[in-house]
């Protein structure tokens, strides 16, 4: 996965993501593609969650999956989640759950609850940072005011780090793939460097929905695992998403 929250020069916040999934879950030799990734693509749906006939939040999802990986609370915040690998991982959380220790939250149920119930960027950030979870994760959160964009690096119990947008420091965007931002990514899976190169080449002056889609369309940010690209504009309350393909030659991950 790759998630970006960027602030343009007018202070508008944009949030984009590629949802990559299906690694090592069966390779289709004839079509040069991952089996599960290809099976997920027809299941991609956009959902308008409504209560009292009003939109509460919107999401790009896989049909049948009740949790949330990509969502927008119009005019309030945007949220995506990327996988974080750790030895202290979800299997330990599941064992604890089976043994009756149930004070942690399942990752995608937490994101769904935040999208449904949080009423502000700060409130969402607090819930995502402080709620105990069964598995580690990265939460990428965008708000509706200047400077409101962050990456929350989560272990199962704690928030390890929160990296915020800080335009004064020249950090007009935050970008997360699947590795702690203070460490180098795994050398066989560096999507961060090409993604940041393209963001820096685009510049804050020219960042938009269109150029953000360009960044997310550049290999290997776009790869054989990419099922969809989603683009969110919090001030417009707008979510759009597109099912992707990556014709060969293209990185398997």
């Amino acid at each position, binding site marked *: 996965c790759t998630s970006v929250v960027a602030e343009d020069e007018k202070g508008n916040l944009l949030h984009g993501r590629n949802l990559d999934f299906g690694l090592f879950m069966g390779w289709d030799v004839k079509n040069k593609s991952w089996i599960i990734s290809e099976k997920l693509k027809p*299941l991609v749906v956009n959902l308008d969650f409504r209560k009292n006939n009003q939109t509460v939040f919107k999401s790009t999802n896989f049909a049948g999956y009740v949790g949330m990986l990509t969502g927008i609370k119009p005019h309030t915040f945007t949220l995506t989640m990327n996988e974080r690998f750790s030895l202290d991982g979800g299997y330990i959380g599941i064992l604890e759950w089976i043994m009756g220790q149930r004070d942690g939250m399942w990752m995608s149920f937490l994101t769904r609850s935040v999208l449904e119930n949080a009423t502000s960027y700060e409130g969402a950030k607090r819930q995502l940072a402080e709620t105990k979870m069964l598995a580690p994760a990265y939460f990428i959160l965008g708000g509706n005011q200047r400077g409101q964009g962050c990456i929350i690096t989560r272990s199962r119990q704690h928030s390890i780090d929160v990296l915020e947008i800080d335009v004064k420091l020249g950090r007009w965007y935050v970008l997360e793939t699947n590795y702690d931002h203070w460490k180098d990514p795994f050398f066989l899976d560096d999507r961060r460097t090409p993604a940041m190169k393209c963001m820096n080449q685009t510049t804050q002056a020219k960042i938009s929905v269109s150029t953000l889609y360009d960044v997310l*369309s550049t290999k290997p940010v776009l790869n054989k695992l990419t099922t969809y690209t989603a683009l969110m504009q919090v001030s417009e309350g707008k979510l759009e998403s597109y099912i992707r393909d990556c014709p060969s030659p293209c990185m398997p991950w």
Partner: protein
Amino acid sequence: QFIPPYTEDCRTGMYPPNGPTFRGPVSWYTVDLDLPPSERWTAVITEKKQDLISLIQAIRNLANAFVPSGKLIELVDIALPLMVNTLPSPFGEEIKGIAEVSGVPLGEVVLYNIFYEVFTV
């Protein structure tokens, strides 16, 4: 470059989405949170039922590749339905509703929904 990781110059002009990297748009559905949890996903699942069944079958094939005896799927189908009642509301009820509309065994819909935690295994 034509060797891994196949990096390329930063793309431009890709939007509005077009060309070989754009497979298609995504349809919109409404999920009415005023409905009982078990009924919220009926419209979506009714339309996506075959695709969901196809995905679950692919995961079954994968599981059988690892455990040809079929015991792994048996375990999923026996153990995970017991787990659904431990999931917080409204998620457990929504998952049951999806299993009912799709016809996919409840344990396998539970596995689909907790796959992020299971995948770490």
